[in-house]
């Protein structure tokens, strides 16, 4: 008897303590939910319910790496959006329908934390996790690399915290990798191809041979596919494609391959510094003054941005075609309200990356106000199939079935040194492509959004 008693005492000392500890942790964790489930329709998801009188947003942008320029501009826009949400101004005056008051969101002041994605999915996930777990953000945003955006979208779904994508242009973001907790306002490679194909055929003819250099990750791959599809529809031939590692600084070996081919068009599926480097070096290799197959050699940059144009310089972008989500020279009321307040704050006009991040933050806040809660499933429903004006030209439509926003986009051409009027006047709008001309059926891409409540 005595022995047995001693045994049980000894056994209790470790294993049982652990077991009991684990059991009580489970009870402590689930207990309150068991009692509240029937009395509260909105159970805790992610960082909901929001405690205190400040609601935190997280802004996770590339502050280093190939897309650092874009990231810096995104952060400026986010700060401006927070300022406007708390104090009014900017697009709050033009966005319709809007329930935003300019006095915070749902009676709470908006605060924010920022992080560096380093243009790397792993670093982005770590930074986002810190925002969610330590800083208790109710929503986070950011972008400038689709692989980074997609990684964060998956994390968003897992954690139950909405991710409002910043600049991400891969078809996968709202295609095969679409997530219920991720939303994209920016356009995608498919829309770029659809808009650009006919313009290129008009300008350069239908008998062209294209060589692609493509950034080797999800965005580059889908853009290559889309541009190939839409230029081949116009009669072009795709000679070759080389995948180049993200962050390549010397493109000479790839450009030599282009020179050695019989291609008469070079398509650069590069963005940010990659594009600045590859375009500058292509020009250094004489590709803008060259003739091939009896035609002038041409360079195309399907995804353009004013920041990149600035980085590459006016003489290099002169006459180069591309597409863009938005440009600061647009004259609709929403764009102008944003441009004016951005210029007042920072002294220069915003980029397309800045515009999409700013709009996304306002759209999220507006959805919370319209839903009357921060409860993620209700906010998601308020964003799905939302139609709005005053955030850029024309009416925009956030499609509920894939969380892709459809709106007017622009085909642009680089302005040469003699055409530009001022430091930031670098892109000439060749065509204003209407929303209905770039919209596509939802089943064009596979993928599932997933549940409203994270598993």
């Amino acid at each position, binding site marked *: 008897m005595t022995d047995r008693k001693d045994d049980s005492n000894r056994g209790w000392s470790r294993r049982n303590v652990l077991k009991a500890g684990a059991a009580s942790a489970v009870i402590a964790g689930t207990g309150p939910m068991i009692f509240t489930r029937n009395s509260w329709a909105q159970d805790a998801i992610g960082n909901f319910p929001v405690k205190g009188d400040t609601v935190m947003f997280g802004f996770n942008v590339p502050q280093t*790496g190939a897309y650092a320029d874009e990231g810096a501009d995104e952060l400026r826009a986010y700060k401006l959006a927070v300022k406007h949400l708390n104090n009014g101004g900017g697009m709050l005056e033009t966005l319709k329908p809007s329930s935003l008051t300019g006095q915070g969101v749902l009676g709470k002041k908006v605060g924010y934390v920022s992080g560096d994605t380093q243009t790397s999915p792993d670093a982005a996930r770590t930074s986002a996790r810190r925002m969610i777990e330590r800083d208790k953000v109710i929503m986070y945003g950011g972008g400038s690399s689709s692989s980074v955006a997609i990684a964060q979208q998956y994390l968003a779904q897992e954690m139950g915290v909405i991710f409002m994508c910043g600049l991400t242009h891969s078809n996968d973001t709202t295609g095969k990798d679409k997530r219920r907790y991720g939303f994209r306002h920016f356009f995608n490679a498919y829309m770029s191809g659809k808009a650009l194909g006919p313009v290129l055929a008009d300008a350069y003819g239908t008998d062209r041979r294209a060589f692609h250099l493509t950034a080797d990750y999800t965005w580059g791959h889908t853009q290559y596919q889309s541009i190939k599809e839409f230029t081949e529809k116009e009669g072009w031939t795709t000679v070759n494609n080389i995948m180049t590692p993200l962050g390549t*600084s*010397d493109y*000479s*070996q790839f450009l*030599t391959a282009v020179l050695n081919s019989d291609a008469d068009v070079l398509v650069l599926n590069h963005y940010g510094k990659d594009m600045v480097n590859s375009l500058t070096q292509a020009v250094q*290799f004489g590709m803008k003054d060259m003739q091939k197959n009896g035609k002038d050699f041409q360079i195309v940059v399907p995804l353009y941005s004013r920041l990149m144009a600035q980085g590459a310089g006016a003489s290099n972008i002169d006459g180069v075609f591309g597409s863009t989500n938005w440009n600061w020279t647009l004259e609709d009321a929403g764009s102008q309200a944003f441009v004016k307040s951005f210029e007042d704050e920072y002294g220069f006009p915003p980029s397309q990356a800045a515009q999409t991040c700013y709009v996304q933050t306002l759209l999220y806040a507006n959805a919370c106000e319209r839903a009357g809660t921060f409860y993620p499933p209700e906010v998601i429903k308020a964003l799905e199939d939302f139609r709005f004006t005053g955030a850029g030209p024309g009416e925009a439509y956030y499609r509920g079935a894939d969380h892709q926003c459809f709106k007017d986009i622009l085909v642009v051409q680089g302005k040469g040194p003699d055409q530009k009027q001022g430091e930031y006047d670098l892109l000439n709008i060749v065509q204003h492509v209407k929303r209905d001309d770039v919209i596509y059926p939802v089943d064009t891409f596979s993928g599932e959004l997933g549940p409203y409540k994270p598993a």
Partner: protein
Amino acid sequence: MSGDLINALFLQILTGLQLGMIYAMIALGLTLIFGTLGVVNFAHGALYLIGAYCAVIIAGKLGFLYAVILVPLILFVIGIILERGLIQYFYDRPHTDQILVTFGLAIVAEEALKWIFGANNIPYPVPSWGQGIVMLHEYVPFLSGFVVFPKWRLILILVSLVVIGALFFLLQFTRFGLVIRSGMRDAEMVRFLGINITRRFAAVFGLGALIAGIAGVFGGPITQVSPAVGMKMLVPSFLVVVIGGMGSVAGALIAAVVLGMALSFTAEYSSIQQIIIYLVAVVVLLTRPRGLMGKKGVFE
């Protein structure tokens, strides 16, 4: 052979040479420092980086020619300070300690430059006399049609060849070179002969840094000037040293050209291109464990 094929081959060889030459200039310093001092200097990429940043600033403020003269001198001084102030205390320590301290130094340099100049790359314009393209078909008899190459990249190849030639001359035909070469073989014996080898070895560290400075001045416009470039250049350059044979100057040169050609000729096959330099390293080290021209007893 058809004209097109000759053109293509010629351009690819030229590109390979250009790619290899930057690696060669960095690897020469690395291998020289290793051969003489026995130090694996992971901070050598950072010296290139500092060279490129100094070049951008000096070229922007005073003019490019000043950069050509001043940057190598500045780097030489930095090299001497580094060797006297830090590296000399690690000569007798294990290689792992040396690697850790120089790697740490590289990170400090990278972060410091990021802190001062930001994480974005700084535009480094090519001087006006180096801009534009050279119509190679007008000069090279066997080329037909239209074959061009950027002038700056040809200048880079030329400068690298001159630097490498000068280094060979220094090592083979001067008294200083003789001491260095004998010191590489048997430092103790040279010391017994009454030669102050320490002072000369400090100069070798400075010389390695100086070459990295020249590489920074001429390579900067091609590799870009951003804090990440140092590390990016270090790995292939280190491979060049290993493939060429630790401590062998001629081996480094051959290995640099081999890697440059490998990168150039696989450009169209991206899945292979991204691993080709490592593949070459594996093949070379399996067949010649000491590298192409490695000597017995070095780093063994």
